[in-house]
Structure formats: C-alpha cells, structure tokens
C-alpha cells in the first residue's frame, strides 16, 4: 500500500513537471507568434525572454515583408557553454533578420559534425554552415559528394568583394593575420574563422615565487631549472609541469623551432605526401619531454588528449605550470581567483635554436556549396555577424580565444580589457611575434586526425613504457606515412 502511494506521488510529480514545462513552451510560442522562428528562439534558453520581447516587432516586420522564413542550419561541435553562446547569437541574428532563422544543432566532436554533414549532403538535406577544425582543413577541401563535386564553397568567393550582406558588414578582411594565413589555401580564404587559439603556459606564481623564481620560465632549460628548484621545496607539489598529450603541442614546438611537419612547405605550396616524424626538432622536443617525465617533473595523466585531467592537476596545485590552449584563459583566471596567482606566459621554447613562431589552432565555419542565393547570403551574413567586433570581443572575453578581427582588438583595447586582465593578451602577443613561414603556419595534411593519433600514441608509449624516442618515432613515422599515402591515393588528382 505504501509503495502504491509512493508511486502515485511520483506520477503526480511527473505530470506536474510535464504540465509546467509545456505551459512554458506555450508562452514562448505565443509571444514570438512568428511560428517557425519561435522554436529556435526557445532553444536559446535564457535569451528566450529577451528575444521574445523584442520579437514582437521583429515578427511584424517579417510578416510585413513576405512571411517567408529561410532556415539556416548551423552545425556546431560544442556541447557546453559555447553551444549556449552560439544559440544566443543565433537568436540575436534571427531577431535582427526575421526573414532568416538560424538553427543551431550541436554535435559532440568536429568529426561527428563532418561525418554527419557528408552524409547529409548525400541524402539531400545538408546544413548551410558547419563548424570544423583546423587540422582537417585538407580533408574539408578534398571532400566531395557522391557526384564528385566539392562539398564546401570558399567564403571569399561567395562574398565576392561585397562589404555588406543583408545589412551585416563583412568582417572577413579584418581577420587577424595568423588565422588568415593559416586558412588561406591556394590564395583563397576558404572558411570563416571562429574559435582560434594558440598554446600558452599558465604559471602558479605562488609556487614559482616560493622556489625563488620571479618570472615564468621562457625556455626548456628554464622549465627544467624551475622544476629542480620546485622539487627541492619542503612542501613540493607532486609534479611540476603538465600539458595534454595532444599532437597540437608537438606541432607548436615544430613551429617554434622552424621545422616542417610535412613536405611541400607543410603542404602549403603543393599537396603534402610525406610527413617527418623523425626530424631533429621533433626528437629534441620529445627527448626534453621524456627527460622531464623521467625526472618526475612532468605529470602524465595517463590519457591522450586529456584536457580535463591536466587542467584539474593545475587547479589542484599538483603542478606549478600548465601548457594549455589560450582558449581557457578566462576560465583559469576565474577558477584560480582566491587560490593562487595565475600568470600566463609564452609556450616554453627550445633555447638552442632561433624562435620562429607558434601557430594557431581551433576551428572555422565552413559554408556548403550548392545553397540557393537567399540561403547563401543569410549564411554569409550570419558568419560575419557572428564575428563582428562586438561579438568577437565578447567571445574572447567569455573564453580566452583570440579576438578574431583587428576591429575587435581595437574595441577591447578601447574598453581597457587588457589592463584589466593582462593574461588575455599573452596569446595575441605570441601570435604577433611569430614569423610568417610555412613552419610556423602549421601543416595542411590529409588524414591529419589519424596521423595525430599515431603521434600521441607513440608519445604515450614512450612516456609510459620508457622506450627510446628515436626508435619509437621511426615506427610512428612509417605508420603515419602509410596513412598519408593512402589518403593521397584516394584524394589526390
């Protein structure tokens, strides 16, 4: 009897919950009254209220114009607060352009977005825009549909020199050089940069100061010396430094040392068909890394691409230094407040060679080919709106990703943002210090995702099983080149 009562209560609770949520939906729909538009607006969560209140006027304009609403599907590879940010911006764009309805669909990873987009193209219902990452630029350029036509269209070509599209100013020309150079292939800027970052080092200055070090270490030797000093402390942390075992850090180090990862100038003067995983720069970097690990200074979390574990170790004070993506600068500033002094610095470099330059990482917005003119214009307008000075600045402040346009940097400087949070400037300074050479641009490479896996697996093997760097990288080199050769067989010519 008791159980029945409990069950009844549970059912009542469920029904009540269902009712309350459905009534929320109703209000939203009534307020927006624009039919289609409302659904997207609601998905924006908190923003729903703001937009809906402004929506009244918007809807009137839309119905006055024609009542036709063009859907623009934008597939995003974020599932956290960055997805919410995208939804907010989509809602704001929809409010300003009632003839368009930008819909955000969220995926767990870049690969998921890409696979889904390729399949959607073949099944005839592709999105207008997708969010895809830098390492797969070659793959995106090579992607074709079942008839053999390229899937993506160059945004430069689509913009065609216009300075304004459906009322939104074009900001492509204002994109910072590091990103422009990275994503320009065969003279054409293919995709619209969005989240762009570089690697910086975060320093727990409390520990470093205690060990008598006043400035963040700048070179490999400095890091090793700092670690020796820290390890000698009476209350030494369990480790000294960490960073995720992600191939991006290897690529960054090659850029710093001016070494190529692939032939044909890192695949920038012609298709790359050979990778160099046995170069001096790479071996030296891994030797230094392994040395830190053997001495107990480098803390390996035991997982490849472990962003969460490394960041936790730094926040928990288990390491004094964390080499990481600048994309989380704001996060670290916020999380370390009251814990310890967190100072960002350049990624440590090899003191034995001249510094060439760090590269970017991140993702861009790719536009699909074959959209009708109205949809294409809407998609382009949204992509430019998404990175207009205000939005790009907000995105930078929210995350730590680069302010992607020069105008947004000017805006941030005017607001005094960098005086307020100096750590946010480090990444921009590091990119500004980089020379514009193929090495510091990073490689355009087929099968890059698989090749990156080959690299990180080899590193894990070296760190965990104490293998010889040169021998293990020779195996990795053979495997990576096989992967690339196969990719070129399927995609080149």
């Amino acid at each position: 009897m008791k159980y029945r009562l409990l069950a009844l209560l549970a059912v009542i609770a469920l029904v009540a919950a269902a009712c309350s949520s459905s009534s929320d939906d109703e209000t939203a729909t009534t307020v927006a009254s624009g039919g289609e538009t409302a659904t997207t607006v609601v998905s924006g969560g908190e923003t729903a209220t703001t937009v809906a209140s402004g929506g009244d006027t918007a809807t009137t304009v839309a119905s006055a114009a024609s009542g036709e609403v063009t859907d623009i599907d934008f597939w995003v590879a974020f599932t956290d607060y960055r997805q919410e940010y995208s939804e907010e911006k989509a809602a704001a764009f929809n409010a300003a352009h009632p003839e368009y309805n930008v819909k955000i669909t969220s995926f767990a990873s870049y690969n998921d977005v890409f696979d889904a987009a390729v399949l959607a193209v073949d099944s005839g219902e592709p999105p207008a825009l997708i969010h895809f990452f830098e390492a797969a630029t070659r793959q995106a350029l090579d992607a074709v549909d079942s008839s053999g036509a390229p899937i993506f269209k160059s945004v430069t070509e689509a913009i065609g020199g216009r300075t304004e599209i459906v009322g939104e100013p074009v900001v492509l020309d204002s994109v910072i050089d590091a990103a422009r150079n990275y994503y320009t292939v065969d003279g054409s800027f293919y995709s619209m940069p969005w989240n762009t970052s570089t690697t910086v080092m975060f320093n727990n200055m409390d520990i470093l100061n205690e060990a008598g070090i006043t400035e963040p270490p700048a070179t490999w030797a400095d890091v090793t010396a700092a670690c020796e000093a820290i390890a000698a402390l009476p209350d030494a942390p369990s480790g000294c430094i960490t960073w995720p075992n992600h191939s991006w850090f290897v690529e960054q180090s090659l850029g710093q040392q001016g070494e190529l990862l692939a032939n044909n100038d890192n695949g920038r003067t012609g298709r790359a068909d050979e990778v160099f995983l046995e170069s001096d720069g790479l071996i030296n970097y891994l030797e230094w890394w392994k040395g830190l690990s053997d001495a107990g200074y480098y803390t390996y979390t035991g997982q490849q691409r472990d962003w969460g574990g490394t960041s936790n170790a730094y926040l928990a004070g288990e390491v004094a230094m964390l080499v990481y993506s600048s994309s989380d600068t704001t996060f670290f500033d916020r999380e370390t407040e009251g814990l310890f002094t967190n100072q960002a610095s350049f990624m440590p470099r090899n003191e034995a060679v001249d510094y060439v330059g760090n590269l970017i990482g991140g993702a861009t917005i790719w536009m699909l080919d074959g959209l009708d003119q109205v949809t294409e214009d809407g998609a382009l307008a949204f992509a430019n709106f998404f990175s207009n000075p205000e939005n790009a600045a907000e995105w930078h402040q929210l995350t730590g990703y680069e302010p992607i346009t020069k105008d947004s940097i000017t805006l941030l400087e005017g607001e005094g943002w960098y005086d307020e949070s100096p750590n946010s400037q480090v990444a921009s300074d590091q990119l500004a210090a980089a020379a514009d050479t193929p090495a510091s641009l990073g490689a355009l490479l087929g099968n890059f995702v698989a090749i990156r896996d080959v690299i990180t697996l080899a590193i894990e093997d070296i760190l965990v099983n104490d293998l010889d760097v040169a021998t293990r990288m020779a195996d990795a080199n053979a495997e990576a080149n096989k992967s690339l050769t196969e990719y070129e067989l399927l995609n080149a010519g």
Partner: protein
Amino acid sequence: MLIAGLVVAAILGPLYVRRNTINPTAARYGIGSAVAVLGAAVTPLAMGQCSFAEHSSGVDKLLGYLLMFGGAWLALMGARIFWDRADGKKKGDAAFAGEIRAGGFRLGLWVPWVLLSPTLIILLVFLYFPAAATFTLSTKLTRLGAPKSIDVCFTNFTELLITDPFKLVAYPLIAIALIYGARFWKSRSEPGSASRKGAEVAAVIAMLSVFVALYAMFSPGGGGQVAYRPVYINTVIISVGIVAFGMIGGLAVAYLAFRQIRGGGVYRTLLIWPYAISPAVAGVLFFMIFDPTAGIFTHTMDVWFGIDVPNYRESAVLAQSSIILASGWKILGYNILFYLAGLQTVPLEQIEAALIEGASTWQRFTKVVLPALSPITFFLLITNLTYAFFEVYATIDFMTKGAPAGKTSVAIYEIIRVGVNNGDLGRGAAQSVLLFIAVIAITMWQFRTSGERVSYGGS
C-alpha cells in the same frame, strides 16, 4: 590456381555426399560435385579472382582457398537439406511427427510470409543489408567523403595476420589435432583412473592451445602489417576477466542474497540496479572513483591513510583491472537476477537427499546447486561474452581511452577507433567482420561443448 581449387571442390563434393546423406545415389554424387564447384566459384568470381592474382601473397591465396572451401561447404549443406527432406529425415519439431501433427495455414503458404514481413523487413533493412555492406567495405580502401575508393582484395584482413602462410595453416591444425587427441585419449581411458585425469588435463591444455594458436597467427606489427596481436591479447584478458568476475561474483552475491534475511527484498532490488546503468555512466562512475587527480578513492587513500595510489591509467595491469571491475560490476546485477531466479528452481529434494548423505555445505553447493544451475550458467556465459565483446566501448572510452599505450584497446574499441575516429572505413569493416566471425565461432563452440554438460533436470 583457381582451377586447382575447383578440381578439389569437385572431388570433395561426392565425399561429402557419401558421409552425410542416407541414400547416396549416382545422381547425388554428380549433383554434389557440381554444387561444390559452384559454391567454391562464388567468392573468386565475385572478387574478380583477386586473391589469385600475380602479385598476391601466400596468405592471400590461402584466404582465397579458404573462402572457396567455405562456399563449397555452405552449398553442400544447402543441398543436404533438400536430400534430407526427400529421404524423410526429420529434425527438430518434426521429429515428434508421430505424436504431433504438423500444423499448416489453411489460407495458403503466403500467409506466414505476410505475417512475418514486418520483422523480415526490419531485419533486412537494419541488419542484413548493413552486414552485407560491411563485408563489401572490408575489401576496400575507402574514406567517408573521399572521391575514390580502391579495391584491396583481402589486404585489410591479411595485414592483421603474420605473413607466413605455412604457419597460418600449421598453427590451427596443431590446435585441432590436440583437441581430437585429448578426446581420443579420454574415450580410451577408464573413468576414475589416473589416465582419465591425465586426459582431462590434456583437454584443458588443448582448449588453451586454440588461444595460443590465434595469438601466434595475429601479426605483432612491423613490416607494413597492423599490430593486431596486442589487441587480441587485450580482448582475451579483458573479456575473460569481465565474464569471470561478473559470473563468479554474480553467483556468489546471488547465493548470499537468496538466503532468508531481514529486508532481503530490498537488498535484492538494490543489487540489480547497476544493470540499469549504461556502460558510459559506469565508465564515468569508476573514473570519478579512481582518477588520480579528482578521484574519490585516491583522494581518500591519500588524505586518510597517506597512501599514494598510482595512476591506474599508467599501468597495464591496473588499467585492465579497472576496466574489468567497472564492466564486471555493471553486468553483475544482470547475473544476480538470473542466478536468483535459477536458485529458486534448484530441486529441494536433491538438497535434502545430499544433507541426509552427510554432504557439507561446499559439497552441496558444488555437487547439487551448480549442476542444477548449469542451463543458466550456459545462457549467462553467452550473454556475458557478447557484452564483454560489444558493449565495453563506452566504459573504456571514459576510463582509459585505450591507455596505457593501447593496453586497454580491445577489438570493439579498435574497430571504432580505426573505422570511425580515423575514418578508415575499410579496415574498420574488416576488423568488425573478424569480431563477427569470432562471436559465431565461440557461440558454436559453446553450444557443442557446454551443451553436453548442461543439465536441465529430470532424468
């Protein structure tokens, strides 16, 4: 090459007819021969005789012959069904024909097909078609979104194996010889004698030799081959671990929970709960317990006892054990559920009789309860093995991502890593065909061996 294979098939056909049919007429010998040749010719023709091409390796040719043999065998099995029917040999339900009259649809033969069609269509679209597509993909070098795809014959399979065709033939033959040798020994030995004991030990060794033979057949990597041997080892260790832990633990807990205790119903309900958790959540849970930085267990050990627990992801033994623990824990509830139900069916009379005979608790458990549970154990063995093969991906992905250095990358994890994450559809498909064959083989072996020992009660 191809002709030689076909000639062999033409000779083997009549031999099969002679062994397997009651009424081997001259016509049947002829048909048997023709059917075998046709069956053997299917794969080489479908594949454009690629495995017998000029440049193909010994292992390629071996696989080609193996597939011809398989095709001939399947074709002959099909023919045998017709002959058996003609000879009035009945199987299954039909064996009871004397007592039960076979039913029939008065409206005609099409009625059952119409009634079955929803199921058949779903099976066709979501199971058979993708399965066929997987077989096709496994012979190609292809990527999603790439403009071309290249036929690579059986390279996706052969590169998982060692390159010496003679060893590839010899190892399985040795294992089979050991198994039949042990059986022969057992049949010639007196029950209870020392010789019988020896035969039983030999039978276990022969069974293990199958695992060793497979170990020797998979490539350790290098020379352009894929290092599949480590994956095989991981799969065996982790699967056997999960099944052993899940089933022994399940039976132990069920035996304890089955006793009359206060609030037994609550315990029993709570014990089954882990089964309702998805493998991904199980992975997250154990990650939260054992993670070196954020883990509850590691933190507690450190703060309370000052023990510095090593990072489970940096040691192969710890990483594999934690996967076994997490996955075994997840399937535990399922096993408990079935064992609890099974324990209720153990005949009370038998236990009473054993008590009167003076059997100890342990003897009652091993000699009465365990045999009575054997049908359940047999069923659970297959379901647990299927679980250990196919459903551990999410747990591994959350706990180790294959770390350290691939030591927890089991077959299913490797398939998804290669086929989905790296976009190498052909190799992924080939590896999943391999896993498919493995599961079929294990199930067949289970049915043959365990079937003899399973007691369903009664006389």
